[in-house]
Structures are given as structure tokens and as C-alpha cells.
């Protein structure tokens, strides 16, 4: 057995041990974990707030915040829901794009555009604690 082979076996053994002991701890979050994840989330929420108040998100200088202070009257907790004027059930990002296209006279964002994620993170954060009511008008 060469020196290198020995090293590989030892490493393999070490990984096995880690996997065996680690599996019992996989869902035990530490406070440090929670704080880190919350920080990640809030950084996206804050990006969303910046976009919400950004007169450059659309093309006419109008910002989301003009009609929706604190993201009020966006009720993301009611989506997906049937939008009569669109003729189908839509998730909230489609309504965000409707607003970007119409009152903001701008170009719609892709569903997985980080800006779209940030806008949704901000909206839902402002509605935290409100009960989910999908489909409700």
C-alpha cells in the first residue's frame, strides 16, 4: 500500500465517522446558524425595500412605495389567486410584474431574477404574522 493510498483510506474513514455522527445532529441548528440565516434573509429583504422605493425600477419614475407604503395592500398572503383580469390563477410575482409593466411603465422581471426574489422577500416580511389565505379577495 503506497503512502498516498493510506492517506486516501484514512480520509475515507474520517468522512464515514463524520457522516455517522453528523447524521444525528443534522437538524440541530445552533444560534449562530439561525443568526446567519436571518442575516442572509434580511439582507435580501433590505434589497427588496431598496427596490420598492427605487424610482428606477420602472421607466416613468414611479416607485412601488408610492401606492404601497410598507407594502400595504399587496396582500401576498392571498396568492396564488384567481385574477379576473388575467383570466387565471397567478402567483404574486406575476402581479408584481403587472405593476412594473403598468403603473411603472417598465420591463417585467424574470421569475427567478434576484430582484424579483428581493421584492417578494420585502413584501412578505412586511406581512409577517398575517395568516395565509390563498385565493382570497
Amino acid at each position, binding site marked *: 500500500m503506497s503512502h498516498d493510498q493510506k492517506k486516501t483510506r484514512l480520509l475515507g474513514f474520517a468522512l464515514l465517522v463524520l457522516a455517522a455522527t453528523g447524521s444525528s445532529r443534522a437538524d440541530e441548528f445552533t444560534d449562530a446558524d439561525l443568526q446567519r440565516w436571518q442575516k442572509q434573509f434580511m439582507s435580501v429583504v433590505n434589497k427588496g425595500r431598496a427596490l420598492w*422605493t427605487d424610482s428606477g425600477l420602472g421607466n*416613468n*419614475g*414611479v416607485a412601488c*412605495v*408610492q*401606492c*404601497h*407604503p*410598507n407594502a*400595504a*395592500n399587496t*396582500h401576498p398572503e392571498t396568492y396564488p389567486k384567481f385574477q*379576473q*383580469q388575467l383570466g387565471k390563477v397567478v402567483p404574486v410575482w406575476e402581479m408584481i410584474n*403587472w*405593476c412594473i409593466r*403598468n*403603473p411603472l411603465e417598465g420591463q417585467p422581471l424574470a421569475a427567478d431574477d434576484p430582484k424579483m426574489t428581493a421584492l417578494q422577500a420585502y413584501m412578505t416580511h*412586511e*406581512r*409577517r*404574522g*398575517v395568516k395565509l389565505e390563498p385565493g*382570497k*379577495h
Partner: protein
Amino acid sequence: MNTINRSRRQFMKGAGALALGSMLPVSLVELAFAESSQNFSFAYISDAHIQHIKDNRFVRNWDRGLIRAVAETNLLVPKPDFVVFGGDLAQLGNKPELDHGAEIMSALQYKVHYVMGEHDYYLDLGEYWEKLFGPQYYSFDHKGVHFIVLNSILTYDEWTHNRWPTNEQRMLEMAMLDNPKGSPFMVGAEQLLWLKKDLSMIDNNTPIVVFSHSPLQKIFRGWNFWTEDAEQVQALLQSFNKVSVIYGHVHQVQYNQIGHISFNSVMATAWPWPYPPSYAHAEQYLPKLIVPMNRADPFFERDGTGWQLINLVNGNVDMEYLLYSNRGRSVRYHREANRPEDIDYPHETMRIPPQSHY
């Protein structure tokens, strides 16, 4: 006894649909009161938020709201005695916006009294606005009623002066309704002194009507539905028997009664705002009297916007909201209850879903 012909509302709906139809009813308002000298009407247009994009381009949506209010107000029969513009003619207080707004307003066939809004003020502290429309606060008398116009959107000097790198930045900060870096509105010591002096010459039985941009009552600080020294203004007004405060800023139907003072809000022509309870994370004091207006449908651009006709009946305000995409609303002073009351939705059970769901 308070009989106002409801056909006026039907007429206005027709006028909206026909866009300046030629058939105008002869009599739209019937008032049956002894002191007829105190019965007259005036129109109230507010919160146009004319917004400059660049060059000769303005946000079409807000333009249309104001143009429509002006056109419909010109159709009123009988003619209102005057028109009030309740503030926020501009979005960011610059010359192109104020000029463009003034030009749209110039089509009105009536005398117009202007109220200062924060969006008109915080770029140059009202300098250009004054050149166009006159003093920032003043009073006048009309048919036995004493009218007072206040600039209620002032704030602490420390916030206004030497705080922001540019005047444009100051304007942008105050323009954002929910800005934690904003500052509460106030009438201020100078105007309070002036108001006290102005009122000292008025008999207690003279009806007083005050126009302000912000509510002279405290509803929700987070969105400046609030005037910091509201209690001091109210204290000066309470010794009069009939006082009405009419305010803009809130872009929604509101009304209240505090002692002798009736409060009525007016709608925006630009866009509607949600009611404060729709924001789940802050304390608010929306008056219990209020029956909320419908939650606006964004697919109808003018939903939740409009203007109003005010009948001053024996010195009390009867407010007729003429809403572009909704049934009108009537909030009238109820003489037995001594408070404003919505005449169509007096009870919870009579409300419709969009009035209760945020």
C-alpha cells in the same frame, strides 16, 4: 330634513361616461334650510401628484386624474361658489410639475383657493408655489362662514435646515410616505399665533371651516396621517360652535368628530392609499366612525380616486365623494348625533367585502 337630490350623483356618473355631455340637469342640489345664506357648495380637488419624467413628459396616470376632476367640476350645475385644491399638486415640488399642474388647474372656471402640501413644499420651502398661488396660510369670509387655510406640513427646524446635502434630497426624503427618516408634520408656533389672532375677531357662532393638507388629528404617525401639534390647533378651535376641518394627504375616505370639530378627508385624484390598519406592525388610531372605502382594484387605473362636492348646510359639511370607478360616497353631518355619518353604510352588516378586507 336634509334633502339633497341624489340625482346629482347619477348625473356625475353619466358625465364621466359621456365625457362632457351636453345635457346638464338644471337643478342638482336642493337644500331646505331656514338660514339659506349659509347654504352653498364648493368643490374640492386634492393630491394630484403631478410627476415629471423628463423633458416634456409627465406620468400620464396622475395627469389624467387631475384633468378629469377639472373637467367634471366645470360641469357642476348649479355652479359651486369656488374650488379648493387641497395640496400635493406636485410630486417632487419642482417648477415643471407645479407649472404643469397650474396649467391643468387653469381650465377651471372658478376661483381656486390653494392649500400647501409637503410634495409642493420641501424642495424650495414653498417659494415657487407662493409665486403661483399666493400665501401659504390665510383666511377669508364667504356667505357668513369664516374659512382658514393652514400650512400644516411644516416640521422641526432641525429636520428642515442644515440636515440634507441638497434640497432635492430633502424633498425625496419627505416625499416617501413610510420613510423612517421622515419627520412629523406640524402647524408651528408662528401660525398658531396667527390663528389665535385671526380667530379673536370672529364670533363664536360663526361657522369655521379649516383647510389643511394633513389631518389636524392624530391617526397614524408612520405615514404622517398626523399633525404633531394637532391638539393645540384643536384647542383654539373648540370654543366655536361649528367647526369643520377638511384635509387631504390621506388619499382615502376619513371622518371624525372631536368635541365641536368635525373632520372630513378628501380623496386624491392620483392614487388611493391603504388604511393604516392594513399595516400589521404599527400602532394606529383610525377613528371608529369611519366606514372604509373599497379596497382599490389596480386594473382600473382610476379606482379609489376622485374629487368631492361639499355642501355647507347651516355651516356644517356634507361631503359628496365623486369617485371615478366606484359608487359615490356621502358623508353628512348628522344633526341629532352631532357627528359626520356615512349615509349608505351606517352599519357593519351593510358593508361589502372590499370595505373590510385589506
